[in-house]
């Protein structure tokens, strides 16, 4: 039996809104598990059901072998990190971190050492006596993290903890979170709508859409082997082509509804192509230089296609309207049926 199991979880808010619709998954000890999906897909609802702040309409949750359904939230021993930090403004940094230990009647000396240890882990040792209002957003979220970890919970839940921080800090702190989670070996469920963050931080990702699970897998599986058109287009960028494009791609299209190929799998034709390559003539519509890479938007008989060029030469010019030839390998083309489910076999 897995460490945390969620079985057939459904949640219906008043009226017909189905925030969760038959969600099942399992998380292992030490695992960093991420819920990824667009906003409104039910991530927060799922997390709050695990924490006990929301009751499921149907389904069950168990943690470490015990059913959670009848356990009130304050007895679940689940640490939580909030999007708006939820740091207590009337308590000092150290008092914030000690707050959960007080409820557990941990002796004062042990509290002091554990608080100091937790504050050092999140690099706030020097701030212990300050009030949170004097700290930056990133520091406040570190307090939130230390406060949740110091009680040594059975499970750590984080609901978009980085979404209120600026880009640079977000990347630093997400690496820290990941390192801390691995070093104390705790099971963590992390919620985000940022696919790059999910890929960077997770052992496994669960992609959700409209209250349902689309796919669960490692970052590699989610990115390179998406099971549905939703996952394919939500994680990373994807060129989606209609069924009619088949003739131009030289493909068989009996059951296929849509084709998809990643921009980085397309190259500009420069002769030496692999044997199973497909060639497509087109015209430049727009050229976007981004430094590390460049995007060429091309109008082709199969539809609009974006090509990603790695490490583009600064001198490269692409005038709108000029003719180009695109090339990609048949094995990199994904095909999906009319329900958006992946059809087996690459390139069909």
């Amino acid at each position, binding site marked *: 039996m897995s460490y945390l199991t969620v079985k057939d979880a459904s949640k219906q808010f008043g009226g017909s809104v189905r925030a969760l619709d038959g969600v099942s998954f399992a998380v292992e000890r030490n695992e960093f598990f991420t819920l990824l999906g667009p906003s409104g897909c039910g991530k927060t609802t799922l997390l709050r059901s695990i924490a006990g702040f929301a009751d499921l309409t149907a389904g069950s949750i168990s943690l470490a072998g015990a059913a959670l359904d009848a356990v009130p939230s304050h*007895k679940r*021993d689940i640490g939580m990190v909030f999007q708006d930090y939820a740091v207590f403004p009337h308590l000092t940094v150290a008092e914030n971190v000690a707050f959960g230990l007080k409820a557990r009647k941990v002796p004062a000396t042990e509290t002091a050492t554990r608080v100091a240890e937790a504050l050092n882990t999140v690099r706030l040792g020097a701030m212990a006596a300050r009030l949170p209002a004097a700290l930056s957003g990133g520091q406040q979220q570190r307090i939130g993290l230390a406060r949740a970890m110091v009680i040594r919970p059975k499970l750590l839940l984080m609901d978009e903890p980085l979404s209120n921080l600026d880009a640079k800090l977000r990347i630093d702190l997400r690496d820290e979170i990941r390192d801390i989670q691995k070093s104390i070996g705790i099971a963590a469920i992390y919620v985000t709508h940022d696919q790059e963050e999910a890929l960077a931080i997770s052992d496994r990702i669960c992609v959700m859409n409209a209250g349902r699970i689309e796919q669960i897998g490692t970052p590699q599986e989610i990115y390179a082997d998406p099971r549905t058109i939703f996952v394919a287009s939500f994680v990373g960028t994807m060129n989606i082509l209609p069924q009619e494009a088949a003739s131009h791609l030289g493909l068989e299209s009996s059951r296929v509804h849509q084709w998809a190929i990643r921009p980085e799998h397309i190259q500009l034709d420069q002769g030496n192509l692999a044997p199973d390559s497909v060639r497509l003539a087109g015209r430049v519509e727009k050229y976007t230089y981004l430094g590390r890479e460049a995007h060429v938007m091309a109008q082709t008989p199969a539809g609009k296609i974006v090509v990603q060029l790695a490490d583009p030469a600064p001198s490269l010019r692409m005038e709108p309207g000029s003719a180009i030839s695109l090339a990609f390998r048949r094995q990199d083309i994904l095909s999906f049926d009319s329900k958006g489910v992946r059809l087996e076999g690459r390139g069909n």
Partner: protein
Amino acid sequence: MRVSFWTLVSIFAWLILIALLVVPLGSVLLSSVQDQAGSFTLANYARFIETPRFRTAFLNTLIIGFGGLAGSLLLGSAMAFCMARIEIRGSRIVSLLAILALVSPPFIGAYSWIVLFGSGGLVRQTLMSWGIFIPPIFGLWGILIVFSFKFYPYVYLLASGALANINRSLEEAAESLGLTPFQRVMKISFPLVLPALSAGGLLALIHSIADFGTPRLIGRGFNVLATEAYTLYSAEVGSNLSMATTISIVLILLSMFFVFAQRYMSRRNVYHGNLINKPVKKKLTGFPNIAAHVVVYGIALIGAMPAFIAAIYSVRRTSGPVFHPGFGLDSYRRILYNLADVVQNSLTFSFATVALIVTIGTLIGCLVARKMSVNNSLLDATLMVPYVMPGIVVGIAFVAAFNSPPLALTGTAAVIILSIFIRRLPYSVRSSASALRQVSPSMEEAAISLGYSPSRAFMKVTVPLILPGIIAGGMLSFVTAINELSSSLVLYVGSTATMPVRIYIAINDGDYGTAAALSTVLLVLSSTAIYIAFRLMGRDERALL
């Protein structure tokens, strides 16, 4: 467990509203449509329409309402513009003076204007000795002057807040599009502060209509609905409760009409300022600078003048009601020896009221803020009714409802406490609800996830966070409670007279020394309470509205 607790609070809140609002209002309505025999009649309303005296009072009420509105808008917006956009020296003092004008009881204003500009008024006599004749201040113009200088802070505080929050980029954008400064003000700034102006104006209008002390003291025959209702009720011979209740209903309808009219007019105009690019205050020089200072200090000093007059006159030597040259503490001595029970009444009633308001208002505030439901929205809406009820009406309604068993409360201290309680309850509910809304629910959830039960999480986290706001709200309620005149005047008996009631009586008796000393005591108590409130919640004048 927790659910049933909040259900209890909800039931309790409705019981309070039924007992202190629905029943009194129902009694007023009933009494206005019943004849002597107790059968249904519209004769009172017919009489109201037919009698020239009442028609005049109705018209007069509209005149002083809109007059007070116009004067307050003029003074308030002029001051708001200067304070928000121009560097004024000592602007902190100016806002203190505005607060002083706001918290001094309105009839002190009337009294001080009489002291200076009445028939034998100090300034008027001096001017006459120089050969300059001005008419005594009594009548319509007196009322309008008092109202304008008393109620302008409503407009000033709301409008200056709005002006200070207009994103400067908006005005710069207008400038870059080629609008002249005048066009800019008319097309950009004015529409943006219009909601605040109309909200402040509404407060001035409603208070002008409801005010009883000022027209009574300074009107000299200029009767309005509030004074007519009181006269009808209190006439020694032929007290006419059913006609008084009829006028009360008219007054309530009038106030409600203006509240809804203002809501309707500003229904689309809700702007949320963003604080990224705040307007800067301009430093003026030369004549414009002097003019701006004269305007600001002129309004502020005249507005606060009644408080100073009261303080000065309270230490003049007196014997009986007559002033003598020189200074002394005779008036305070008289309070100490003869009126200590009145001071004590005021303090006891106010503390009792505040205790009730704080506990019950906070509970209902939590209910309204945290437990969204149709029932609670309805509760919130019903709580708006006491907000538009003039004090005189509350007093008459309580008499109509509690004069006979099973609830024969008239003449008790309880009825005065309850009447102030119900009038102030809406403010308290709103302020505690808004304090609570500022505490993110995830605070409490964080505590729960750390192992605290929901009730302990509430006590450990939410209560400490909202406590300063609640105490501050209590202090402001104390100010209202201790200054309340009109409902107490209807409800008091000899043993339950309060300071405002005694001041009113003293002024009527020409005992100005006692009135001044009692007023000064009131002002000191009010200022202390406001000082504590501002210390606790940060200085926010708009909390006083």
